[in-house]
């Protein structure tokens, strides 16, 4: 009977999670406006600096071992915060792209599909990167590379801007005055 109790509790939890996620999904479908406002800008240079192995090496040479581990952990926590925001932004971009997929315009639909795929890849990379950061928190002396997250983020941003231009060509697009 103990086994039955365990299974009943597991089934009740599963039911609760499924209901909650289904309701969230239904509400999301109804509130797909103002998604852009949910994007939080990220200082990519600061993030690049955080994950630069040369910086870590420099700190490792200059600081005593225990102090280095402390600083490394602080840097890893900051890194996790950045990656978390990048992942949240990717999630918003997935939703923006999926909302645009319904467009009758083939060019917009194509750009939207590209955006969804890039954002999903970023989302996947951020999930893996977060797992590695948390592992590195336990072993601060281990090496770590999250460069792919930045590269993917930049690629997604580019695709998002392309989609924006296609969706609303009437508005002057200031991609960059320097480009």
């Amino acid at each position, binding site marked *: 009977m103990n086994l039955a109790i365990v*299974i*009943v509790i597991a089934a009740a939890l599963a039911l609760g999670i499924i209901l909650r996620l289904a309701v969230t999904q239904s509400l999301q479908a109804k509130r797909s406006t103002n998604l852009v406002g949910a994007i939080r800008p990220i200082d990519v240079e600061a993030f690049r600096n955080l994950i630069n192995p040369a910086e870590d090496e420099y700190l490792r040479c200059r600081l005593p071992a225990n102090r280095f581990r402390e600083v490394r952990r602080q840097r890893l926590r900051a890194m996790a915060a950045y990656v978390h925001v990048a992942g949240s932004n990717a999630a918003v971009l997935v939703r923006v792209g999926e909302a645009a997929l319904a467009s009758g315009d083939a060019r917009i639909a194509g750009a939207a599909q590209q955006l969804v795929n890039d954002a999903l890849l970023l989302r996947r990379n951020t999930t893996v990167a977060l797992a590695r950061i948390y592992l590195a928190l336990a072993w601060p002396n281990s090496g770590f590379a999250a460069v792919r997250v930045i590269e993917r983020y*930049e690629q997604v941003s580019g695709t998002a801007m392309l989609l924006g231009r296609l969706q*609303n060509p009437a*508005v002057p697009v200031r991609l960059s005055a320097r480009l």
Partner: protein
Amino acid sequence: MLQPHSLLWHYLWIGPHILQVALAVFLWRRGMHKRFPVFFAYLIFEAIEEFTLYGMDLLPWVSVRTWWLTFCVGLVPEGFIRIGVIAELSFHLLRSRSAVAKAGSLLITGTGAILVLLAAVAAAYAPIDNPQYALASRAYILQQTLYMIECGLILFLFLFTACFKLSWDRTTLGIGLGRGISSSVHLATWAVIANGGLANRRYLLDFLNVATYHLCVLIWFYYLLVPQKIATTSAVSLPENNLDIWNRELERLLHQ
């Protein structure tokens, strides 16, 4: 009222299956059976199976052993079809998302393998106390096993899509929600029955099972047949200056 062979008992056993035949007819007429062939097959198979079992339950010359044997025989293809419905849902969720399709398929397969292992362990620990009812006990354990795998897979699908913020289309969400509710409630009730719980009030669990299934059929009716309100998507509702804000944010991101 909550007694075996009461009017409510008859209705809850047979009513949902009449409704699901009607649903299958509607799906056929709307051509939706081509998009969801496995779910369509599930509706038909489940209805035929339950009509057969209901008829056999009413016929006095059908022995208890024959009834349970038919129940067990029907469970095997039904289990495969139910897993097939989940495969169909995952196909619809992943086919246009090439970036996560491979990872998703691998994770679903891995989750399925772990669930089969867990279900086998749970089945091994379930008792078959009375040899006289061994066939019924095996049927209970088989149900517990199948629902454990199904419930786990559907839960995984919901968690996976939530993690990647993938959107479900209305039909897929309806089917997934219905199967999710059905499999989790049935898992709990069959686990209690298979492990010898509520021996004197087992019919209450039967009522819970059939009432839950009735609810699920109504959910399918709502999601599959009631037309979706056309939501205003961001693709058409972006105010003119929104794109500017968007670009400014991303430009800042790219050039900082």
